[in-house]
């Protein structure tokens, strides 16, 4: 049973964690695409920015000598960081995207503008925080949860860290809240209407400017959550989320751009696909050796670990070719 526990640790847990990050990021991208019809490339850096804001707040809290038992400080300050990031996201829209939209610029122009924003955020983050790697857990321990599995006859423990557990729980809660918001509230319904057909939504009397603002608030807030949780899980670097912006885009496209539920599915699909692809299957096959016609050698991963990130792109390209609108039907420009 050791092998099963190994499988759970290597694939199920890390896949769920990776999937949560991808899903949280992809929801924001997909909402922005649905409402504003452009691929918001700066989303990854909004995640990093959110993480740095949380880091500063956590530092302030720690300097004031405050701490909450059992929870990491970085997680406690999340609500405040979320509000700040959402406000900055609104400001970025007002400064850089709104003037272009007003001029009737093409979506491609907005995509290029978002690359400009990406570079500005990255430059500023590195200017203020340098390029070093930071950790939320310099002053407090990172708690690790171990589940003893001797009752199924295994010597290994199922292991995950507290941030990983919090991340998955937070993702589930946020997805539920978002679902209720989109399906039950007036504003949420307005958002979906505008995502389906912006012109029709406007003539129906929906306040589209308000919908745009709400979209940025939600996207910024989710980006902050995703970035902070990712930084809590691994460590905080200036290119924290820039490195995974492409898998996140892949998740949004695989799920169908503009489809919030599709983004969640796409995120988890890619998360599990990546961990499954680099999993060394020989571990699971070795106990079955007596019944197998071939010799099990080690290193039976589908792709070598160094190509882990490319799994997402291969899936993306295949999905784009076979079903260009994503596995759920996506919106079009």
């Amino acid at each position, binding site marked *: 049973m050791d092998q099963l526990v190994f499988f759970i640790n290597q694939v199920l847990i890390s896949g769920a964690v990776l999937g949560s990050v991808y899903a949280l990021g992809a929801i924001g991208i997909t909402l922005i695409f649905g409402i504003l019809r*452009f*691929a918001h490339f700066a989303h990854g850096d909004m995640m990093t920015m959110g993480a740095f804001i949380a880091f500063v707040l956590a530092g302030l809290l720690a300097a004031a000598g405050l701490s909450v038992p059992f929870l990491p400080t970085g997680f406690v300050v999340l609500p405040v960081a979320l509000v700040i990031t959402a406000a900055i996201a609104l400001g970025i829209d007002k400064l*850089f995207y709104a*003037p*272009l939209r007003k*001029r009737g*610029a093409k*979506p*491609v*122009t907005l*995509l*290029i*503008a978002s*690359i*400009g*924003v*990406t*570079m*500005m*955020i*990255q*430059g*500023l983050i*590195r*200017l203020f925080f*340098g*390029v070093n790697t930071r950790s939320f857990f310099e002053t407090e321990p990172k708690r690790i949860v171990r589940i003893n599995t001797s009752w199924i006859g295994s010597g290994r423990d199922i292991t995950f860290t507290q941030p990983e557990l919090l991340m998955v729980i937070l993702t589930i809660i946020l997805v539920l809240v978002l679902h209720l918001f989109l399906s039950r509230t007036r504003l949420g319904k307005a958002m979906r209407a505008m995502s389906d057909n912006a012109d029709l939504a406007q003539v129906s009397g929906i306040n589209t400017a308000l919908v745009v603002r709400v979209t940025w608030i939600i996207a910024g807030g989710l980006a902050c959550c995703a970035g902070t949780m990712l930084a809590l899980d691994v460590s905080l670097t200036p290119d924290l989320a820039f490195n995974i912006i*492409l898998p996140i*885009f*892949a998740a949004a*496209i695989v799920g169908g751009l503009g489809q919030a539920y599709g983004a969640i599915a796409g995120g988890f699909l890619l998360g599990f696909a990546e961990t499954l692809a680099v999993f060394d299957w020989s571990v699971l096959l070795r106990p079955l050796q007596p019944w197998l016609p071939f010799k099990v050698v080690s290193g039976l991963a589908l792709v*070598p670990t*160094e*190509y882990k*990130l*490319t799994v*997402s*792109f*291969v899936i*993306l*390209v295949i999905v*784009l*070719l076979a079903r*260009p609108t994503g596995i759920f039907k996506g919106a*079009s*420009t």
Partner: protein
Amino acid sequence: MSTPLMNSPAARTIGLYIALVVLIVAVMVYAGVPYTTRMLVEAAAYALIALGLNIQWGYGGLFNFGIMGFLMVGGASVVFVSYPLNMKFWNSVGPMLLGRAILAAIIGALIIVAARQAHRIGITGGRKLALTVIAWAIAYVLFRSQMDPAANFIEHNVDFIGGLGLPAVVGWAFGGLVAAGIAWVIGRICLGLRTDYLAIATIGISEILRALIKNMQWLDRGTLTVSPLPWPLPLPQDYQAKGVDTMSALIYARGGFLILVAAIVAVVMLLLIRAYGGPWGRMMRAIRDNYIAADSMGKDVTKRQLEIFVLGSVLMGIGGAVLVSFAQILDPNSYQPINHTFLIWVMIIVGGAGNNWGALFGAVFIYVVWLMSEPLAQFLLGGVNDMIGHFGWGAIPDIESRSLQMRVFVLGLVISLALRYAPRGLIPEVAQSTR
């Protein structure tokens, strides 16, 4: 812009180029001649790349965000062609193992092609799809079973396969050729996609190329880097050996390199301007502006777009090869989307998409800004540092590494301002309809 003189596009172009020359002279005074020649060589290589993107985006309206991948392909090609022979490899069983891997790849490709033709023997629909998937799986396993031992052997016994020892210029041409081949495959797969999907797909492909070049140690030693690569012309060391002093040797060697690259840029410019003004250019613009109308006029839109994608990528491959040759080192770790994809986009947007003079101007101008924002930021931060020193707030730590990051911010700001206030670039495309 209010004066009538500035309304003439030609006067505006000349004025901007004069300003650019003044800027370069200013850099020369500030940083010295050897540094400026180095900057200009690199700027000329970037100009080639920018012209390539100008063909794709300016002429054809194709969104290529995978420039970095093509630059790396060009770089790896020039390493393979121009690096001296590694006799250890050629005397080992390495070539045989590699030959078997190539054979396996060909057999795998044949299996896939055969599976795709299954409809001829009456297998269609879901069954054909299943057959194709199985064929891909068999081909993949077959290839990996031959490639993994070959790569393993080469990496552990003979370091890497070395080069062919041919002149660097041949390597540049080969870089363009390989880039063309890869662009053809990518184009066949992706060009049917909508703009934003195409952008993401090309970024994804360039990341795959980067991962491959980084991890194929048998080909290019991966992160261990290959150096020194030979120059097509005498190196500064060669001049020094003849008794020329260090400063002049640098200027002679880099100046020679600059003339060579500038000549390539000039030839490319000439050809592009001819092509742009001719029927071919008109057809491309027609496809870009309204592909449905162009299609109904009997133009083969897909084929033309593929043509333009391949052509642009050739220039990117050559440019990437020139950059690696000049730096004498291929370091896969130094390739970043910001430095090698977005930078080129900024050049085109600021210079003026669709105008070759604009692309050339943008490439040189943005490269100068890119390099100069670092010392400028250092100067500014130093000033701030002195100021807050008076208040006793303590110094800013590691100013050098921070100001290096400033250029990323400056670039982002430049592109935002350009999109807002000069969306068609500083030297916009000239409308040809009123001739």
